[in-house]
Protein backbone atom coordinates (compact mmCIF):
# COMPACT_ATOMS: atom_id res chain seq x y z
CA UNK A 1 0.00 0.00 0.00
CA UNK A 2 1.24 3.48 -0.82
CA UNK A 3 2.16 5.34 2.35
CA UNK A 4 0.22 8.53 2.97
CA UNK A 5 3.37 10.60 3.17
CA UNK A 6 6.86 9.66 2.11
CA UNK A 7 9.94 11.73 2.92
CA UNK A 8 13.11 10.73 1.10
CA UNK A 9 16.53 12.10 1.98
CA UNK A 10 15.07 15.37 3.21
CA UNK A 11 17.91 17.79 3.88
CA UNK A 12 17.87 21.38 5.04
CA UNK A 13 20.98 23.52 5.01
CA UNK A 14 21.08 27.07 6.28
CA UNK A 15 23.71 29.55 5.22
CA UNK A 16 25.12 31.57 8.08
CA UNK A 17 27.70 34.32 8.20
CA UNK A 18 30.57 34.08 10.63
CA UNK A 19 32.02 37.03 12.57
CA UNK A 20 34.22 38.07 9.63
CA UNK A 21 31.47 37.60 7.08
CA UNK A 22 32.74 34.17 6.14
CA UNK A 23 30.06 31.99 4.62
CA UNK A 24 29.30 28.90 6.62
CA UNK A 25 26.74 26.20 6.05
CA UNK A 26 24.79 24.57 8.79
CA UNK A 27 22.96 21.32 8.10
CA UNK A 28 19.85 21.29 10.30
CA UNK A 29 18.35 18.15 8.77
CA UNK A 30 20.57 15.61 7.09
CA UNK A 31 19.17 12.99 4.68
CA UNK A 32 16.09 12.10 6.65
CA UNK A 33 13.78 9.42 5.23
CA UNK A 34 10.56 8.03 6.67
CA UNK A 35 6.98 7.27 5.74
CA UNK A 36 3.69 7.99 7.44
CA UNK A 37 1.14 5.22 7.04
CA UNK A 38 -2.61 5.63 6.77
CA UNK A 39 -4.25 6.15 10.14
CA UNK A 40 -1.07 5.80 12.19
CA UNK A 41 0.67 8.14 14.59
CA UNK A 42 4.36 8.58 13.94
CA UNK A 43 6.25 10.48 16.61
CA UNK A 44 9.43 12.39 15.89
CA UNK A 45 11.39 12.97 19.09
CA UNK A 46 14.65 14.68 19.89
CA UNK A 47 16.30 17.36 21.98
CA UNK A 48 16.78 20.98 20.97
CA UNK A 49 18.79 21.29 17.77
CA UNK A 50 17.96 17.73 16.71
CA UNK A 51 16.17 19.00 13.60
CA UNK A 52 12.72 17.70 14.54
CA UNK A 53 10.96 21.05 14.11
CA UNK A 54 12.71 21.76 10.81
CA UNK A 55 11.59 18.32 9.64
CA UNK A 56 8.04 19.14 10.70
CA UNK A 57 8.12 22.41 8.78
CA UNK A 58 9.37 20.68 5.64
CA UNK A 59 6.73 17.96 5.64
CA UNK A 60 4.05 20.61 6.34
CA UNK A 61 5.47 22.52 3.35
CA UNK A 62 6.04 25.60 5.45
CA UNK A 63 9.68 25.40 4.34
CA UNK A 64 11.32 23.97 1.21
CA UNK A 65 13.95 21.27 1.60
CA UNK A 66 17.44 21.94 0.21
CA UNK A 67 17.53 18.38 -1.09
CA UNK A 68 15.32 15.34 -1.09
CA UNK A 69 11.74 14.71 -2.01
CA UNK A 70 8.31 14.62 -0.45
CA UNK A 71 5.43 12.53 -1.74
CA UNK A 72 1.86 12.79 -0.49
CA UNK A 73 -0.56 10.06 -1.47
CA UNK A 74 1.80 8.99 -4.24
CA UNK A 75 2.09 12.47 -5.72
CA UNK A 76 5.39 14.38 -5.76
CA UNK A 77 4.69 17.56 -3.78
CA UNK A 78 8.32 18.59 -3.22
CA UNK A 79 7.97 21.70 -5.39
CA UNK A 80 4.16 21.93 -5.39
CA UNK A 81 2.81 25.40 -6.13
CA UNK A 82 -0.58 26.96 -6.82
CA UNK A 83 -3.48 24.53 -7.09
CA UNK A 84 -1.37 21.52 -6.12
CA UNK A 85 -0.14 23.28 -2.96
CA UNK A 86 -3.67 24.38 -2.07
CA UNK A 87 -4.82 20.78 -2.44
CA UNK A 88 -1.95 19.67 -0.16
CA UNK A 89 -3.00 22.25 2.45
CA UNK A 90 -6.50 20.79 2.37
CA UNK A 91 -5.05 17.39 3.26
CA UNK A 92 -2.31 18.34 5.71
CA UNK A 93 -2.91 20.59 8.71
CA UNK A 94 -0.68 21.71 11.58
CA UNK A 95 -1.37 22.22 15.29
CA UNK A 96 1.25 24.44 16.89
CA UNK A 97 2.69 24.60 20.41
CA UNK A 98 1.41 27.99 21.50
CA UNK A 99 -2.30 28.25 20.76
CA UNK A 100 -2.50 31.95 21.57
CA UNK A 101 0.19 33.05 19.14
CA UNK A 102 -1.28 30.90 16.37
CA UNK A 103 -4.85 32.17 16.76
CA UNK A 104 -5.71 35.69 15.58
CA UNK A 105 -6.69 37.54 18.78
CA UNK A 106 -9.04 39.88 16.89
CA UNK A 107 -11.09 37.13 15.24
CA UNK A 108 -13.97 35.23 16.80
CA UNK A 109 -13.65 31.46 17.14
CA UNK A 110 -16.17 31.07 14.33
CA UNK A 111 -14.05 33.16 11.97
CA UNK A 112 -10.88 31.32 13.01
CA UNK A 113 -12.47 27.93 12.39
CA UNK A 114 -13.86 28.94 9.00
CA UNK A 115 -10.61 30.49 7.72
CA UNK A 116 -9.21 27.20 6.30
CA UNK A 117 -12.46 26.66 4.38
CA UNK A 118 -12.38 30.20 3.02
CA UNK A 119 -8.77 29.64 1.91
CA UNK A 120 -9.79 26.41 0.23
CA UNK A 121 -12.86 28.03 -1.35
CA UNK A 122 -15.07 25.34 0.15
CA UNK A 123 -18.61 26.09 1.26
CA UNK A 124 -19.43 24.20 4.46
CA UNK A 125 -22.45 21.91 4.60
CA UNK A 126 -25.13 24.16 6.06
CA UNK A 127 -24.32 27.56 7.49
CA UNK A 128 -20.87 28.63 8.64
CA UNK A 129 -22.15 29.13 12.15
CA UNK A 130 -23.57 25.61 12.30
CA UNK A 131 -20.32 24.15 10.95
CA UNK A 132 -18.21 26.08 13.47
CA UNK A 133 -20.46 24.94 16.32
CA UNK A 134 -20.21 21.35 15.17
CA UNK A 135 -16.39 21.57 15.14
CA UNK A 136 -16.41 23.05 18.63
CA UNK A 137 -18.54 20.20 19.89
CA UNK A 138 -16.18 17.64 18.37
CA UNK A 139 -13.25 19.02 20.37
CA UNK A 140 -15.25 19.37 23.58
CA UNK A 141 -15.82 23.12 23.56
CA UNK A 142 -19.14 24.78 24.34
CA UNK A 143 -20.62 25.66 20.91
CA UNK A 144 -22.43 28.63 22.44
CA UNK A 145 -19.02 30.31 22.71
CA UNK A 146 -18.44 30.51 18.96
CA UNK A 147 -18.52 34.31 18.92
CA UNK A 148 -15.94 34.68 21.69
CA UNK A 149 -12.32 35.70 21.16
CA UNK A 150 -9.23 33.54 21.91
CA UNK A 151 -8.32 35.57 25.01
CA UNK A 152 -11.59 34.48 26.60
CA UNK A 153 -10.41 30.86 26.69
CA UNK A 154 -7.90 29.03 28.92
CA UNK A 155 -4.71 27.57 27.43
CA UNK A 156 -6.18 24.09 27.12
CA UNK A 157 -9.36 25.42 25.51
CA UNK A 158 -7.34 27.56 23.10
CA UNK A 159 -5.41 24.47 22.04
CA UNK A 160 -8.75 22.77 21.38
CA UNK A 161 -9.61 25.68 19.06
CA UNK A 162 -6.31 25.10 17.25
CA UNK A 163 -7.20 21.42 16.88
CA UNK A 164 -10.73 22.25 15.67
CA UNK A 165 -9.27 24.59 13.05
CA UNK A 166 -7.01 21.80 11.81
CA UNK A 167 -10.05 19.52 11.48
CA UNK A 168 -12.17 22.07 9.60
CA UNK A 169 -11.05 20.89 6.16
CA UNK A 170 -11.20 17.16 6.98
CA UNK A 171 -7.44 16.64 6.71
CA UNK A 172 -5.83 13.24 6.15
CA UNK A 173 -2.68 14.16 8.05
CA UNK A 174 -2.37 16.36 11.14
CA UNK A 175 1.10 17.48 12.18
CA UNK A 176 1.26 18.28 15.90
CA UNK A 177 4.36 20.36 16.61
CA UNK A 178 4.84 20.19 20.41
CA UNK A 179 1.05 20.57 20.57
CA UNK A 180 0.72 19.58 24.24
CA UNK A 181 4.11 20.76 25.57
CA UNK A 182 2.96 24.08 26.99
CA UNK A 183 -0.04 22.67 28.86
CA UNK A 184 -0.35 21.83 32.55
CA UNK A 185 -0.25 18.08 33.18
CA UNK A 186 -3.94 17.72 34.03
CA UNK A 187 -4.92 19.64 30.87
CA UNK A 188 -2.29 17.81 28.83
CA UNK A 189 -3.82 14.43 29.69
CA UNK A 190 -7.23 15.64 28.48
CA UNK A 191 -5.86 17.01 25.19
CA UNK A 192 -3.95 13.77 24.51
CA UNK A 193 -7.17 11.84 25.08
CA UNK A 194 -8.95 14.22 22.69
CA UNK A 195 -6.32 13.70 19.98
CA UNK A 196 -6.65 9.92 20.33
CA UNK A 197 -10.45 10.05 20.16
CA UNK A 198 -10.46 12.29 17.07
CA UNK A 199 -8.15 9.87 15.30
CA UNK A 200 -10.39 6.91 16.19
CA UNK A 201 -13.40 8.82 14.85
CA UNK A 202 -11.86 10.16 11.65
CA UNK A 203 -9.01 7.82 10.80
CA UNK A 204 -6.45 10.47 9.85
CA UNK A 205 -2.72 10.13 10.53
CA UNK A 206 -0.63 12.15 12.97
CA UNK A 207 2.96 13.20 12.87
CA UNK A 208 3.59 14.03 16.50
CA UNK A 209 6.67 16.17 17.11
CA UNK A 210 7.68 16.21 20.78
CA UNK A 211 10.55 16.28 23.22
CA UNK A 212 8.59 14.51 25.97
CA UNK A 213 9.02 10.77 25.49
CA UNK A 214 6.46 9.78 28.09
CA UNK A 215 3.79 11.67 26.14
CA UNK A 216 4.96 10.08 22.89
CA UNK A 217 4.59 6.64 24.38
CA UNK A 218 0.91 7.40 25.06
CA UNK A 219 0.07 8.29 21.51
CA UNK A 220 2.45 6.90 18.87
CA UNK A 221 2.57 3.54 17.14
CA UNK A 222 6.01 4.28 15.70
CA UNK A 223 8.79 6.58 16.84
CA UNK A 224 11.67 8.25 15.00
CA UNK A 225 14.46 9.46 17.27
CA UNK A 226 16.44 12.40 15.89
CA UNK A 227 19.83 13.67 16.95
CA UNK A 228 21.98 16.29 15.22
CA UNK A 229 19.78 16.38 12.13
CA UNK A 230 19.64 12.63 11.56
CA UNK A 231 17.21 9.86 12.43
CA UNK A 232 19.24 7.58 14.67
CA UNK A 233 16.47 5.08 15.32
CA UNK A 234 13.03 4.41 13.86
CA UNK A 235 10.77 1.61 14.96
CA UNK A 236 7.65 0.42 16.70
CA UNK A 237 7.01 2.35 19.93
CA UNK A 238 7.29 -0.75 22.11
CA UNK A 239 10.63 -1.68 20.55
CA UNK A 240 12.18 1.80 20.72
CA UNK A 241 11.18 2.21 24.37
CA UNK A 242 11.62 -1.40 25.43
CA UNK A 243 14.70 -2.45 23.49
CA UNK A 244 16.35 0.67 22.09
CA UNK A 245 19.06 -0.20 19.58
CA UNK A 246 20.80 3.15 19.34
CA UNK A 247 23.15 4.43 22.04
CA UNK A 248 21.68 7.92 21.92
CA UNK A 249 18.13 6.57 22.37
CA UNK A 250 19.34 4.68 25.43
CA UNK A 251 20.94 7.85 26.87
CA UNK A 252 17.75 9.79 26.26
CA UNK A 253 15.55 7.19 27.91
CA UNK A 254 17.87 6.83 30.89
CA UNK A 255 17.86 10.60 31.50
CA UNK A 256 14.10 10.85 32.02
CA UNK A 257 13.22 11.42 35.68
CA UNK A 258 10.98 8.71 37.03
CA UNK A 259 8.65 8.40 39.97
CA UNK A 260 9.64 5.43 42.11
CA UNK A 261 7.53 2.55 40.65
CA UNK A 262 7.17 1.19 44.19
CA UNK A 263 5.45 4.45 45.23
CA UNK A 264 3.18 4.24 42.19
CA UNK A 265 2.27 0.66 43.04
CA UNK A 266 1.38 1.49 46.63
CA UNK A 267 -0.71 4.46 45.53
CA UNK A 268 -2.69 2.37 43.06
CA UNK A 269 -3.28 -0.34 45.66
CA UNK A 270 -4.85 2.19 48.00
CA UNK A 271 -7.24 3.63 45.45
Amino acid at each position, binding site marked *: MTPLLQAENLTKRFVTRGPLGARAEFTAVDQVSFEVRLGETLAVVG*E*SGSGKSTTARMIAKLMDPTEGSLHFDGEDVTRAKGAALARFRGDVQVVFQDPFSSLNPRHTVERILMAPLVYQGIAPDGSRRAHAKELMERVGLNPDHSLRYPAQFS*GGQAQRIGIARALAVNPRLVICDEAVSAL*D*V*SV*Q*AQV*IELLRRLQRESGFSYVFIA*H*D*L*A*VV*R*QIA*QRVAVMSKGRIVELGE*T*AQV*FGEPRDAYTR*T*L*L*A*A*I*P*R*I*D*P*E*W*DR*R*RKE*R*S
Partner: protein
Amino acid sequence: MSDLLVVEDLTVTFPTTRGPVEVVKGVSFTVGRDETVGIVGESGSGKSMTSLAIMGLLPKGARTRGSVRLDGTELLGRPERELRRLRGDQLSMIFQDPLSSLNPYYTVGLQIEEMYRAHRDKSRRNARQVAVEALAQVGLPEPERRVDHYPHQFSGGQRQRVMIAMALVCGPKLLIADEPTTALDVTVQAQILRLLADLRRESGTGMVFITHDLAVISSIATRVLVLRRGEQVEYGTAEQVFAEPRHDYTRMLLDSIPRIDDEVSA
Protein backbone atom coordinates in the same frame (compact mmCIF):
# COMPACT_ATOMS: atom_id res chain seq x y z
CA MET B 1 18.87 21.55 65.81
CA SER B 2 16.28 24.12 64.74
CA ASP B 3 15.00 24.30 61.17
CA LEU B 4 16.82 26.46 58.66
CA LEU B 5 13.74 28.02 57.08
CA VAL B 6 10.37 28.32 58.75
CA VAL B 7 7.48 29.63 56.65
CA GLU B 8 4.31 30.18 58.66
CA ASP B 9 0.91 31.07 57.27
CA LEU B 10 2.44 33.00 54.38
CA THR B 11 -0.13 35.03 52.47
CA VAL B 12 0.58 37.17 49.42
CA THR B 13 -1.98 39.66 48.20
CA PHE B 14 -2.03 41.77 45.05
CA PRO B 15 -4.18 44.85 44.65
CA THR B 16 -6.34 44.80 41.51
CA THR B 17 -9.01 47.13 40.19
CA ARG B 18 -11.55 44.67 41.58
CA GLY B 19 -9.99 44.67 45.01
CA PRO B 20 -7.15 42.65 46.58
CA VAL B 21 -6.51 39.13 45.25
CA GLU B 22 -4.77 36.49 47.36
CA VAL B 23 -2.29 34.52 45.24
CA VAL B 24 -0.72 32.65 48.17
CA LYS B 25 -3.17 31.66 50.90
CA GLY B 26 -1.65 30.67 54.21
CA VAL B 27 1.26 28.44 53.18
CA SER B 28 3.35 26.83 55.95
CA PHE B 29 6.40 24.61 55.65
CA THR B 30 9.90 24.17 57.00
CA VAL B 31 13.26 23.38 55.41
CA GLY B 32 15.78 21.59 57.56
CA ARG B 33 19.51 22.12 57.23
CA ASP B 34 20.80 19.72 54.66
CA GLU B 35 17.40 19.11 53.11
CA THR B 36 15.59 19.69 49.79
CA VAL B 37 11.92 20.62 49.96
CA GLY B 38 10.00 20.54 46.70
CA ILE B 39 7.13 22.88 45.87
CA VAL B 40 4.99 21.56 43.05
CA GLY B 41 1.94 22.97 41.31
CA GLU B 42 0.41 23.84 37.96
CA SER B 43 0.31 27.34 36.50
CA GLY B 44 -1.33 29.82 38.84
CA SER B 45 -0.65 27.66 41.90
CA GLY B 46 1.39 30.39 43.60
CA LYS B 47 4.63 28.39 43.69
CA SER B 48 6.77 31.13 42.18
CA MET B 49 5.11 33.83 44.30
CA THR B 50 5.97 31.80 47.39
CA SER B 51 9.64 31.72 46.42
CA LEU B 52 9.72 35.41 45.52
CA ALA B 53 8.12 36.23 48.89
CA ILE B 54 10.89 34.34 50.69
CA MET B 55 13.52 36.24 48.69
CA GLY B 56 11.78 39.58 49.22
CA LEU B 57 11.56 39.95 45.45
CA LEU B 58 7.80 40.28 45.00
CA PRO B 59 6.60 42.85 42.46
CA LYS B 60 5.71 46.31 43.75
CA GLY B 61 2.31 46.56 45.40
CA ALA B 62 2.29 42.98 46.70
CA ARG B 63 1.42 42.65 50.40
CA THR B 64 2.57 39.81 52.61
CA ARG B 65 1.32 38.40 55.91
CA GLY B 66 2.63 35.61 58.06
CA SER B 67 6.23 34.83 58.82
CA VAL B 68 9.37 33.73 56.96
CA ARG B 69 12.31 33.04 59.28
CA LEU B 70 15.76 32.09 58.06
CA ASP B 71 17.86 30.71 60.87
CA GLY B 72 15.57 32.45 63.35
CA THR B 73 15.67 35.84 61.62
CA GLU B 74 12.39 37.25 60.32
CA LEU B 75 12.63 38.21 56.62
CA LEU B 76 9.13 39.55 55.96
CA GLY B 77 8.84 43.31 56.33
CA ARG B 78 12.60 43.87 56.39
CA PRO B 79 13.82 47.01 54.65
CA GLU B 80 15.09 46.48 51.11
CA ARG B 81 18.63 47.57 52.10
CA GLU B 82 18.95 44.74 54.61
CA LEU B 83 17.40 42.20 52.27
CA ARG B 84 19.93 43.12 49.61
CA ARG B 85 22.71 42.32 52.03
CA LEU B 86 21.20 38.93 52.75
CA ARG B 87 20.49 37.95 49.14
CA GLY B 88 23.39 36.20 47.53
CA ASP B 89 24.99 35.81 50.93
CA GLN B 90 22.54 34.01 53.23
CA LEU B 91 20.05 32.97 50.60
CA SER B 92 20.35 32.70 46.81
CA MET B 93 18.05 31.94 43.94
CA ILE B 94 18.37 30.41 40.49
CA PHE B 95 15.74 30.77 37.79
CA GLN B 96 14.40 28.91 34.77
CA ASP B 97 16.10 31.17 32.24
CA PRO B 98 19.73 31.84 33.11
CA LEU B 99 20.26 34.06 30.06
CA SER B 100 17.83 36.66 31.34
CA SER B 101 19.48 36.67 34.77
CA LEU B 102 23.02 37.10 33.47
CA ASN B 103 24.33 40.43 32.21
CA PRO B 104 25.28 39.97 28.55
CA TYR B 105 27.91 42.77 28.69
CA TYR B 106 30.08 41.28 31.42
CA THR B 107 32.14 38.11 31.47
CA VAL B 108 30.73 35.42 33.73
CA GLY B 109 33.89 35.70 35.83
CA LEU B 110 33.24 39.37 36.59
CA GLN B 111 29.65 38.61 37.57
CA ILE B 112 30.68 35.88 39.98
CA GLU B 113 33.47 38.09 41.36
CA GLU B 114 31.03 40.93 41.89
CA MET B 115 28.76 38.70 43.95
CA TYR B 116 31.70 37.55 46.08
CA ARG B 117 33.18 41.02 46.57
CA ALA B 118 29.80 42.51 47.49
CA HIS B 119 29.40 40.12 50.41
CA ARG B 120 32.84 38.82 51.31
CA ASP B 121 36.33 39.88 50.34
CA LYS B 122 36.68 43.20 48.53
CA SER B 123 40.08 42.42 47.00
CA ARG B 124 40.05 41.82 43.27
CA ARG B 125 42.87 39.30 42.98
CA ASN B 126 41.36 36.91 45.45
CA ALA B 127 37.91 37.20 43.82
CA ARG B 128 39.14 36.03 40.45
CA GLN B 129 40.57 32.88 41.98
CA VAL B 130 37.26 32.32 43.78
CA ALA B 131 35.37 32.67 40.47
CA VAL B 132 37.61 30.11 38.76
CA GLU B 133 37.12 27.69 41.64
CA ALA B 134 33.35 28.26 41.60
CA LEU B 135 33.21 27.39 37.89
CA ALA B 136 35.33 24.30 38.48
CA GLN B 137 33.02 23.27 41.30
CA VAL B 138 29.97 23.24 39.00
CA GLY B 139 31.79 21.03 36.53
CA LEU B 140 32.63 23.50 33.75
CA PRO B 141 35.68 22.29 31.84
CA GLU B 142 38.65 24.69 31.50
CA PRO B 143 37.44 27.15 34.16
CA GLU B 144 40.59 29.35 33.85
CA ARG B 145 39.67 30.06 30.23
CA ARG B 146 35.89 30.07 30.56
CA VAL B 147 35.95 32.65 33.35
CA ASP B 148 36.67 35.33 30.71
CA HIS B 149 33.81 34.31 28.43
CA TYR B 150 30.49 36.11 28.00
CA PRO B 151 27.10 34.48 28.71
CA HIS B 152 26.25 33.98 25.03
CA GLN B 153 29.33 31.80 24.61
CA PHE B 154 27.80 29.13 26.85
CA SER B 155 25.12 26.56 26.05
CA GLY B 156 21.85 26.52 28.02
CA GLY B 157 23.05 23.85 30.42
CA GLN B 158 26.42 25.55 30.92
CA ARG B 159 24.69 28.87 31.65
CA GLN B 160 22.64 27.19 34.33
CA ARG B 161 25.93 25.88 35.77
CA VAL B 162 27.28 29.45 35.78
CA MET B 163 24.14 30.61 37.61
CA ILE B 164 24.58 27.86 40.18
CA ALA B 165 28.24 28.83 40.63
CA MET B 166 27.20 32.44 41.23
CA ALA B 167 24.40 31.46 43.60
CA LEU B 168 26.70 29.31 45.72
CA VAL B 169 29.89 31.40 45.67
CA CYS B 170 29.21 32.97 49.08
CA GLY B 171 28.15 29.68 50.63
CA PRO B 172 24.49 30.60 51.33
CA LYS B 173 22.46 28.73 53.91
CA LEU B 174 19.50 28.42 51.55
CA LEU B 175 19.21 28.01 47.78
CA ILE B 176 15.88 28.57 46.05
CA ALA B 177 15.73 26.90 42.64
CA ASP B 178 12.69 28.00 40.60
CA GLU B 179 12.15 25.63 37.65
CA PRO B 180 15.93 25.48 37.08
CA THR B 181 15.74 22.60 34.61
CA THR B 182 12.44 23.31 32.84
CA ALA B 183 14.02 24.96 29.80
CA LEU B 184 16.73 22.32 29.46
CA ASP B 185 16.88 19.18 27.36
CA VAL B 186 16.24 16.00 29.31
CA THR B 187 19.85 14.77 29.18
CA VAL B 188 21.12 18.17 30.38
CA GLN B 189 18.39 18.25 33.03
CA ALA B 190 19.68 14.96 34.42
CA GLN B 191 23.20 16.43 34.73
CA ILE B 192 22.00 19.62 36.45
CA LEU B 193 19.82 17.68 38.90
CA ARG B 194 22.77 15.48 39.81
CA LEU B 195 25.00 18.55 40.20
CA LEU B 196 22.51 20.31 42.47
CA ALA B 197 22.08 17.21 44.63
CA ASP B 198 25.88 16.73 44.91
CA LEU B 199 26.62 20.38 45.70
CA ARG B 200 23.84 20.56 48.23
CA ARG B 201 25.16 17.49 49.98
CA GLU B 202 28.77 18.72 49.98
CA SER B 203 27.99 22.25 51.16
CA GLY B 204 25.12 21.48 53.52
CA THR B 205 22.95 24.14 51.91
CA GLY B 206 19.19 23.80 52.37
CA MET B 207 17.23 23.89 49.13
CA VAL B 208 13.71 24.82 48.03
CA PHE B 209 13.08 23.32 44.60
CA ILE B 210 10.11 24.65 42.64
CA THR B 211 8.74 22.83 39.62
CA HIS B 212 5.62 21.75 37.77
CA ASP B 213 7.23 18.36 37.10
CA LEU B 214 6.31 15.71 39.66
CA ALA B 215 8.87 13.22 38.39
CA VAL B 216 11.67 15.77 38.84
CA ILE B 217 10.46 16.56 42.37
CA SER B 218 10.34 12.87 43.27
CA SER B 219 13.98 12.47 42.27
CA ILE B 220 15.37 15.39 44.28
CA ALA B 221 13.14 16.33 47.23
CA THR B 222 12.90 14.74 50.67
CA ARG B 223 9.69 16.59 51.45
CA VAL B 224 7.03 17.90 49.09
CA LEU B 225 4.48 20.70 49.23
CA VAL B 226 1.64 20.63 46.68
CA LEU B 227 0.01 23.99 45.87
CA ARG B 228 -3.16 24.69 43.96
CA ARG B 229 -4.52 28.19 43.29
CA GLY B 230 -2.43 29.54 46.14
CA GLU B 231 -3.59 26.94 48.63
CA GLN B 232 -1.52 24.26 50.26
CA VAL B 233 -3.27 21.00 49.47
CA GLU B 234 -0.67 18.53 50.63
CA TYR B 235 2.57 18.56 52.61
CA GLY B 236 4.60 15.56 53.67
CA THR B 237 7.62 13.40 52.95
CA ALA B 238 8.10 12.61 49.27
CA GLU B 239 7.24 8.99 49.93
CA GLN B 240 4.02 9.96 51.71
CA VAL B 241 2.89 12.38 49.00
CA PHE B 242 3.67 10.01 46.12
CA ALA B 243 2.69 6.68 47.68
CA GLU B 244 -0.11 7.77 50.01
CA PRO B 245 -1.51 11.08 48.76
CA ARG B 246 -4.29 12.34 51.00
CA HIS B 247 -5.83 14.87 48.67
CA ASP B 248 -7.85 14.19 45.51
CA TYR B 249 -5.96 16.90 43.65
CA THR B 250 -2.61 15.23 44.30
CA ARG B 251 -4.06 11.89 43.18
CA MET B 252 -5.41 13.53 40.02
CA LEU B 253 -2.02 15.10 39.27
CA LEU B 254 -0.24 11.78 39.79
CA ASP B 255 -2.78 9.99 37.59
CA SER B 256 -2.38 12.61 34.84
CA ILE B 257 1.31 12.31 34.15
CA PRO B 258 2.28 9.73 31.59
CA ARG B 259 4.86 7.22 32.81
CA ILE B 260 7.73 6.53 30.47
CA ASP B 261 7.88 2.87 31.49
CA ASP B 262 4.17 2.16 31.06
CA GLU B 263 3.02 -0.04 28.23
CA VAL B 264 0.10 1.67 26.52
CA SER B 265 -2.68 0.00 24.64
CA ALA B 266 -3.22 1.69 21.29
